[in-house]
């Protein structure tokens, strides 16, 4: 958490944040499922100024082979930021931060996937951050769950993700970039709405225990809203047309001229 430039007021007299939001207000969220043709499942998320694409391949043969588990599938996530996704061009390729994020997202998703159905295989999840504005791991995890469902991978539930944090001594939900850079704390949360389980949790900064309690419950409320948007995206993708063509699934990949 960096120091606040003296002229930057993260919360104004009316309790509004830099982008005009109230403390418990989230940025606009849009999710679209099934946006890529080659991947087995995919989802595109626009969350505030974040633009994130997720794709799922598998279950398929596990590479590297020594990671194969004879009892269950391995969920391998790869979080990657495009070089043009941030203001100062990022060098392409993984760094320590993206390795860590890949790991915690893999672990969060593994919890909800019925991995025991696909022994020795790998379910590969690719998250590409095309434009970043704080909260990309939440957007990535949110997109990845929808992509997994779109790929038809059996899951206990979707994982919804949202962050809360503290700016100008106020607990707020879903931090934007300036709030993340100049705020006092950040708590990204991954949540399974059906069971109430927490599958991803990080925190950095400085919070009293009351602020933490408030933050985590705000993040949880955020996750529940995210969950509705995730479900809606999947419903739109797999909506069944009513009039006469009962069996036609709208979102199904168009039958290609095959063999």
């Amino acid at each position, binding site marked *: 958490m960096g120091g606040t430039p003296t002229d930057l007021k993260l919360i104004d007299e009316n309790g509004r944040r830099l982008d005009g939001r109230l403390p418990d207000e989230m940025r606009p969220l849009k999710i679209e499922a099934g946006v*890529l*043709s*080659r*991947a087995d499942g995919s989802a595109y998320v626009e969350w505030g*100024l974040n*633009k994130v*694409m997720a*794709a799922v*391949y598998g279950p*398929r043969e596990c590479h590297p082979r020594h990671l194969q588990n004879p009892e269950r599938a391995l969920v391998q996530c*790869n979080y*990657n930021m*495009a*070089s*043009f*996704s*941030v*203001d*100062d*061009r990022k060098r*392409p*390729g*993984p760094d320590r931060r993206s390795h860590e994020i890949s790991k915690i997202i893999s672990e969060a998703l593994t919890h909800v996937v019925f991995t025991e159905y696909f022994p020795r295989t790998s379910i*590969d999840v*690719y998250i*590409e951050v*095309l*434009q*970043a*504005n704080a909260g990309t791991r939440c957007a990535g995890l949110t997109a990845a769950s929808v992509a997994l469902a779109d790929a038809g991978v059996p899951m206990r539930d979707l994982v919804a993700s949202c962050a809360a944090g503290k700016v100008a001594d106020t607990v707020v939900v879903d931090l934007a970039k300036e709030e993340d850079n100049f705020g006092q704390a950040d708590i990204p949360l991954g949540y399974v709405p059906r069971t109430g389980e927490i599958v991803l949790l990080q925190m950095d900064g400085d919070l009293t225990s009351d602020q933490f309690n408030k933050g985590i419950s705000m993040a949880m409320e955020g996750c529940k809203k995210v969950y509705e948007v995730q479900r809606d995206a999947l419903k739109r993708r797999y909506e069944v047309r009513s009039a006469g063509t009962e069996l036609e699934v709208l979102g199904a990949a168009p039958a*290609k*001229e095959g*063999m």
Partner: protein
Amino acid sequence: MSKDVVADLKRDHIAKLLEKGIRTDGRKFEEMRPLTVETNFIGSAEGSARVRLGDTQVVVGVKLILGEPFADTPNSGVLTTNAELIPMASDTFEGGPPDQESIEVARVIDRGIREGHAVDLDKLCIEPGKEVWIMFVDVHVLDYDGNLFDAANIGANAAFKTAIVPAKRAGKGEDYPLPVKHQPISLTAVKIDGKILVDPSHDEERVADARLTVATIENGNLCAMQKGLDGAFTLDEVFKVVDLSRRIGEDIRSRL
């Protein structure tokens, strides 16, 4: 990248249809797939475009940073093109450092925009020999259904048109539009059983004998070419592709 296996059955199927003058997706031999270009797609980039060419989808981002010119071109900005064939786009792409295929894609795109003078690099010079703009053109492939060359080339041209040099942020005066000079548009064709098809799909690329990419500028002059794969072209076939490149390039240019 791991090699795709193509079933003989599929190869035969494509060849048989071509015999009747039909492509598997119903296109004519000289017909491009539907093209959509969305510019200014990435707010954090100085210029950007999302291009859909059929099911192929790429995002091109342009970033400019201050740096030193090369010793042999002290009065010119520096152009760097990079292509990321990320595993998201295809089950045959693997992570890690760029492989031969990514490098070829990046270099063919680079050649088109460099030799066709898409951007006036001399206008990206701030102090000769000391300080110039370094321009990064990053191609991010999201969905791979063949013909990355043309999708990325179109994306780069579209991104340049809307790109802004971030001079203010760097304390170098007011922002100004990227100095665009020409619009070199590339066209890629493949040869399958002696037939020339433009804008190959992934399946067509996989069964193709040879591939040729030709980039042209507004006045019809050629600025870059690349022949690929282990088959061969006759001179007439090369002329035909050059002709097609001029004609289709003009159409694409008018739509950017």
